[in-house]
């Protein structure tokens, strides 16, 4: 119990350091000021890994991991001008490496038992071969969650992203009942390791608040800096493509391709199209696979 407390304390301190950094960044002193913690390389910090293990890390190895520009809840309702974000997931390439899940958990301060991204083991029928299906929020163009929200805490932006304002959410969980893709999670208790001094933004979804809903947000804080969301760059197999529908380009971090060509050549589809939710996430069928379906990876799906 004691050790647990001290662990979370040091974690909090670590986050505090980072948050001071973010304040500096906002005031224009530059984000690299955060790397001040690199100077005291001898000091070690105890951190909690996504697996729930306690590890000692030398401060020089701690990378700054901060959300760059702070966007207020009101500003976050507008969306990035001139953009229509879209995602394509190539099921032929996924081997359940789970790097996307881990980086997302880290970025959004989530615990492994309730991640935003789930990699589901899917099997369409008895004869067909099982495959891994990474699933995030589909950022629907006809979003059931937005329609049912009584207070406008969840909203659709001009750039296609559906966000949640945790400072508006009343915790009725109607959106969770309405979402046919089970994309939403709820902060049933106090979220662990919350940095109370960090400023909340719907664009980063942190720090999450007790009694409110959360979900994959397409990392708008990264998009504002013309960077790809974390799950795309973290994927070792280039499974996930991300881009702009207006530009008609998507990238998985390694190659950049035409969205329309990709969807045409590889028969892209949207999951449960018949519900009419118009998802912004496309899937490419698991044909000509890069990896055989590996059962040893199966345990990964149950933490």
């Amino acid at each position: 119990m004691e050790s647990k407390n001290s662990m979370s304390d040091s974690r909090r301190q670590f986050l505090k350091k980072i948050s001071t950094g973010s304040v500096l960044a906002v005031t224009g002193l530059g984000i690299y000021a955060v790397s001040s913690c690199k100077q005291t390389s001898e000091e070690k910090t105890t951190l909690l890994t996504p697996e729930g293990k306690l590890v000692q890390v030398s401060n020089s190895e701690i990378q700054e991991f901060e959300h760059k520009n702070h966007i207020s809840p009101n500003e976050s309702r507008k969306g990035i001008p001139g953009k229509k974000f879209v995602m394509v997931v190539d099921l032929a390439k996924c081997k359940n490496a789970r790097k996307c899940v881990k980086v997302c958990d880290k970025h959004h301060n989530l615990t492994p038992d309730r991640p935003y991204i789930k990699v589901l083991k899917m099997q369409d029928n008895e004869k067909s071969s099982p495959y891994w299906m990474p699933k995030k929020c589909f950022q629907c163009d006809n979003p059931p969650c937005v329609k049912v929200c009584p207070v406008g805490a969840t909203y659709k932006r001009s750039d296609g992203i559906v966000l949640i304002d945790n400072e508006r959410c009343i915790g009725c969980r109607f959106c969770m009942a309405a979402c046919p893709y089970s994309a939403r999670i709820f902060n049933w208790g106090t979220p662990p390791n919350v940095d109370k001094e960090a400023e909340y933004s719907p664009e980063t979804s942190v720090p999450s608040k007790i009694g409110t809903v959360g979900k994959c947000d397409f990392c708008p804080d990264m998009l504002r800096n013309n960077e790809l969301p974390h799950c795309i760059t973290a994927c070792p197999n280039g499974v996930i493509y991300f881009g702009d529908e207006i530009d008609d380009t998507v990238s998985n971090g390694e190659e950049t391709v035409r969205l329309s060509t990709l969807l045409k050549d590889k028969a892209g589809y949207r999951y449960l199209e018949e519900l009419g939710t118009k998802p912004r996430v496309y899937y490419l069928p698991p044909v000509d696979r890069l990896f055989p379906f590996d059962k040893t990876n199966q345990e990964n799906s149950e933490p």
Partner: protein
Amino acid sequence: MKKSSIVKQKFKTQREKDVLSHMISTSLKYKLWIAFLFLFIVFGMYGYYRQLRYGLIVTAMRDFTSWGIYISNFVFFVAISLVGSLFSSILKLNDNIWSKPLIRVSEIIAVSAIICAAVIIIVDMGRPDRFFYVITHLRIQSPIIWDVIIISTYLVISILLLFISILPDIAICRDRLTEIPKWKKRLYKIMAINWSNHPKQLAKLQKVTKVLAITILPVAFAIHTVTSWLFATTWRPGWDSTNLGPYFVSGAFMAGAAVIIISMYLIRKHLNLKPYITESHFDKMGKLLVLLSLVYLYFNINEYLGPAFKMVGVEGEHITELFVGNYAPMYWFVQLGGLIFPVILLMFRWFRKPIPIFIISVFVILGAWFKRYLIVIPSMQHPYLPIQGVDESYLHYNPTWEEWSITFASFAWLLLIITVLIKLFPVIPLQEDELDLENSVEPNSLKNEN
């Protein structure tokens, strides 16, 4: 003290004495009953204190089963509240004289249940501190907002209906009850709003009653239909149905009739009102319950036959779970014990006698409560995408003691409000003819039957 006040108090008629005497004296039994209810309420408040402090984590609800017994209990309370409209509107507009002594008790139950429904929905909120956002940030396209609007409308009309039905009697209480504490005298004086039984006043009252009786009918249907839309506007198996509105409304009338039978039995027994709530009332209520149950049975068959015949995807999984899976014992108890058997038994005259029909109604109510559990919870456990990669505890739902304590406290609240209202106001009309002077013969003939 209590006996002397009863002795001192003078009544004009036997009816007045029968109806009013329990309002003057307080028995030990009554005090114990109140204490018993408070026990549950205090326990529930402790449960809620823990929920406020630690969050909804103290419940068994998790990301997939994100609605639990709070919501099913809410639906139950809304269902119960519909009974007010059954008596003060449907039966009254059809010139049923026998049901008149039951109008007040039905309105009292309606008002109490709707208050409890509003309270339990706040208990379910993750952020009750932001309750007023529902008003300050409301978005009209959300079915929750429709529900808030229709429930508050129904509450206002129900309170008005209750008030105008007891108004002449409040005036009698003001004029005749001498042996009561000062605050009660003042209460009656304020509430009687200078009522003097003047023919002009009576005519106005009759008019208002009629307008309200007609107004409440669509509102009553709307209140439970809109509640059903909270579910029907989603894609969940078991909810994604066009049948849900009438299914909810018909189930509500059945549950409401059973609640009236239970309260008739208890009031008659404990307040010594046998001459006014007669065996003939139980007989008629029994027949009414059969009729309402048959309507509900029809919608029930409609609700399950189609999906069970087609067995499509998650809808099929959901049906399997109900019919032969984990929820099968509860499902068949609800369908047989709470619907089929009561219908068959109540067709026989003997089972419509007070004690048998009371027991049957308890089963109907239990069935009605668990039916709402079955409507809410299993549907949430069959999403389109498989439940994987989450904590073990997310796969099941077994309500925690905090949830049960709050649920029982909500029932205790309901009973407490009903008890207090019955204690303060005459539950049976003091004037036999009440408002309709032309029907003064019938109540006497009812009395003679007993």
